C-alpha cells in the first residue's frame, strides 16, 4: 500500500514536470524567455496584495463550478453544460436586480433575493440538460454543449435587446447597478468580497461532506460506478442523475450570481468567463476528489491572473496561462495511465 502511494506520487510529479518541460519548449519555440515568463506569472499572481486579491476573486467562481462538477462526476456524468448554467445564474441574478432595484427594499435583502434567483436559473438550466439526457436520450455532453450556445444566445439577445444600455447597446454589457446593490468588498478599489469567499468555501465543504459523509453521496457514487448494478440494488438511478444535475446547477448558479453581484455589477456577454470549462479541468486534475479541489483551484486562479500582465511586460499572449493549465491536466491524466500500465506489468511478474 505504502509502495503504491509512493509510485502514484512519483508518476504525479513526473506528469507535472513533463508539463512544465513542454510549456518551456513552447516558450522557447516562440522565442520567448521561459524563466522571465514563469517569474512574471508568479509575480503577477502573488507579487502584491492587490494581485493576490484578484486571484481570490477568480478563485471563487472557479471553486464554485468545481464543487458543482464534483457532484455530477460522482454519478458519472460529464456536465459540460455548466458554462450555460453559470450564464443562466448571471441572467437570473441580473433579472432580479433589475426588477427590485426601484422597489425600495433593503439592499441586503435585494442582493440575497438576486443570488437566490441566480441559483434558480442555474438549477433550471441544469435540469434541462438532465431532462434531455433522461427523457430524450441525448448524451449530456452534446445536450450540454448545445444548451451552452443557447444560453449564450439568450445572454447576447438580452444585452443587445431588452436590457440594452440606454442609447448604446454594446459588448461592454448592461447598465451597471447602483453601488448599494454591489456585494460589499474588502477595500473600495478591489472587487474581492468576503461574502463571496465565504459562499465558495462553504460550498466546497458542503460538497465534500455530501459525497464523503452521507448515504446519499454513497448511493450517488454507486450510480457512477455501475448504473446497472445500482439499479438492481434498488437505487432510483435516473432520479439520482436528475438530483445531481440540480445540485450542480445550484453551485453553477451561485457562480453566475457572484460574477454579477461582486465582480462586474452588470451582465456582460462573457459572464461565465470560461470558469465552467476550467472547473472541469480542476476536477480532472484532482482526480474527482473534493479534498484537493480548493488548493488546485487557487493555483489555477493564480495562473489565470498571473498571465494577464504577460502581453504588457513580455509581449506574450495571455493564453500562456491556459497552455500551462491544459498541459498540466493532460500530463497528469497520461501519468495515471502510465502508472496503471507500469503496475500491471510489475504485478504480472510477481
Amino acid at each position, binding site marked *: 500500500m505504502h509502495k503504491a502511494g509512493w509510485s502514484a506520487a512519483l508518476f504525479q510529479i513526473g506528469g507535472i514536470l513533463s508539463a512544465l518541460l513542454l510549456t518551456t519548449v513552447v516558450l522557447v519555440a516562440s522565442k520567448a524567455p521561459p524563466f522571465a515568463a514563469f517569474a512574471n506569472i508568479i509575480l503577477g499572481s502573488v507579487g502584491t496584495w492587490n494581485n493576490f486579491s484578484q486571484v481570490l476573486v477568480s478563485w471563487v467562481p472557479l471553486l464554485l463550478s468545481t464543487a458543482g462538477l464534483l457532484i455530477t462526476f460522482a454519478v458519472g456524468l460529464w456536465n459540460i453544460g455548466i458554462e450555460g448554467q453559470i450564464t443562466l445564474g448571471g441572467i437570473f441574478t441580473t433579472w432580479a436586480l433589475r426588477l427590485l432595484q426601484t422597489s425600495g427594499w433593503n439592499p441586503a435583502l435585494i442582493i440575497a433575493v438576486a443570488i437566490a434567483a441566480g441559483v434558480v436559473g442555474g438549477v433550471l438550466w441544469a435540469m434541462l440538460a438532465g431532462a434531455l439526457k433522461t427523457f430524450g436520450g441525448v448524451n449530456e455532453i452534446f445536450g450540454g454543449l448545445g444548451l451552452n450556445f443557447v444560453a449564450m*444566445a439568450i445572454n447576447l439577445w438580452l444585452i443587445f435587446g431588452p436590457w440594452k444600455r440606454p442609447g448604446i447597446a454594446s459588448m461592454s454589457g448592461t447598465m451597471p447597478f447602483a453601488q448599494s446593490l454591489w456585494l460589499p468588498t474588502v477595500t473600495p478599489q478591489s472587487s474581492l468580497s468576503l461574502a463571496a469567499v465565504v459562499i465558495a468555501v462553504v460550498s466546497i465543504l458542503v460538497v465534500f461532506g455530501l459525497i464523503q459523509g452521507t448515504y446519499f453521496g454513497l448511493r450517488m457514487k454507486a450510480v457512477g460506478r455501475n448504473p446497472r448494478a445500482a439499479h438492481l440494488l434498488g437505487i432510483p438511478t435516473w432520479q439520482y442523475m436528475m438530483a445531481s444535475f440540480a445540485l450542480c446547477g445550484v453551485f453553477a448558479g451561485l457562480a453566475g450570481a457572484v460574477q454579477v453581484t461582486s465582480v462586474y455589477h452588470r451582465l456582460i456577454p462573457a459572464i461565465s468567463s470560461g470558469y465552467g470549462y476550467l472547473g472541469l479541468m480542476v476536477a480532472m486534475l484532482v482526480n474527482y476528489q473534493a479534498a484537493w479541489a480548493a488548493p488546485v483551484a487557487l493555483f489555477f486562479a493564480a495562473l489565470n491572473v498571473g498571465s494577464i500582465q504577460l502581453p504588457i511586460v513580455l509581449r506574450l499572449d495571455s493564453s500562456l496561462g491556459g497552455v500551462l493549465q491544459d498541459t498540466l491536466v493532460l500530463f497528469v491524466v497520461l501519468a495515471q*495511465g502510465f502508472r496503471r500500465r507500469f503496475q500491471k506489468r510489475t504485478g504480472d511478474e510477481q
Partner: protein
Amino acid sequence: MTTQALLINLGGVLTSAGPIVFAATGETISERAGVINLSMNGMILLTAMGGFAAALATNNLAVGFVAGALIGAAVAAVVAFASITLKQSQVAVGFVLALLCRDLSYFLGSPIMGKTGPRLSIAPLPFLSDIPVVGTLFFRQDVMTYLSFLVIFGAWIFVFHTRPGLMLRGIGERPAAAYVRGANVNRLRYFYTILGGAIAGLAGPVYSLSVKAGWKGTISGLDGIGWIVLAITIFGGWKPLRAAFGAYLFAFLQWFGLFLQPALPGIPAQVLQVAPFPLMILTLLLVNFGDADWVARTLSHLPEPARRPLARLLRALHATPPASLGTPFEPE
C-alpha cells in the same frame, strides 16, 4: 434576388460547408473504429493557425494544407495513445486536448495575427462549369471544395462497399468478433483514428486559407465549430453521406440567418449566428427519440393518419452509435 445571384450564394454555402465536411468525415471514420476524438474544437483552431503559418512562411498553399493534416494526425495520435494504449477516458483526454489546442493556437499564433497570406482562388472546371445551374453550383469552386466532394463519396464507398471498410465497421461494432477473424483491433483503431484526424485536420487550413482567410486569434469566429462537428457526426448517424448532408444543412442555416438579417432588425446579428445551435439540439433529440419508451407510448395514442408518418419520420432519423464506441478493447 435574381436566380443567378441566388445560385452564386448557394454555391458559396457549398464552399463554406467544406471544412465542416472534412471534419465530420474524419470524425465519422474515427468513431466508426470506436474512438471518439473530442478534441475537434481545439484541433480546428490549431490546424487553422498552423496551416496559415506554414503557408505564410513558404508562400505555398499546399504546404499549409499538408501542415494542417499533419497537426490533425498528431492530435489524433495523442487521443489514440491515451485511450488505446493507456486506457484513459477518451472523453477526458479529448476535452483537455480541445482546450490545449485552442490555447496553443492563440499563444503560438499571436505573432501572425492579422497578417495577409496566400489565399485559395476559384478554379472553374472547363466545360462542366458552363452547364446551367449545376455548373454554377458545383463546378465554379476552389480545389479544396472539389476535394470535399470527393472525400464524401470516397468515405461512403470505403465504409460501406469495400472489405477494409467492413473491417472498420467490425472493429467499432464487435471488436471481439473482428479479432477472432484475424484483425489487429488496436492497431487498426490507431490507424483509423490518425487517418480521421488527418482528414479533419484539413478543416482548419480550408478556413484560414479560403473560407475565412487569415488568422485573427480569438475573433477568428472558429471557436465553437468543432463542437457542432461532433453533433453533426451524431446527426449523420455515423454515415458519411448523411453527415455531409448535416454539414450542408448547417452551412445553409448560417447563410440563411445572415440573409434574413435585414428583414429582422429587432434581432441582433450575434443571436442569428448562434441560431443553428438550438436546432442542433432539436435534431439530436429527434435522432434519439426512437429509443425512448414514452415516445412509442405517446405515438400509439395518436390517430392512425398522424401516427404513421410521425413514426416513419422518427425511424428515418433514428441512428444507433457503433456498439463499442468509447470502450477499450483488450485481446485475451
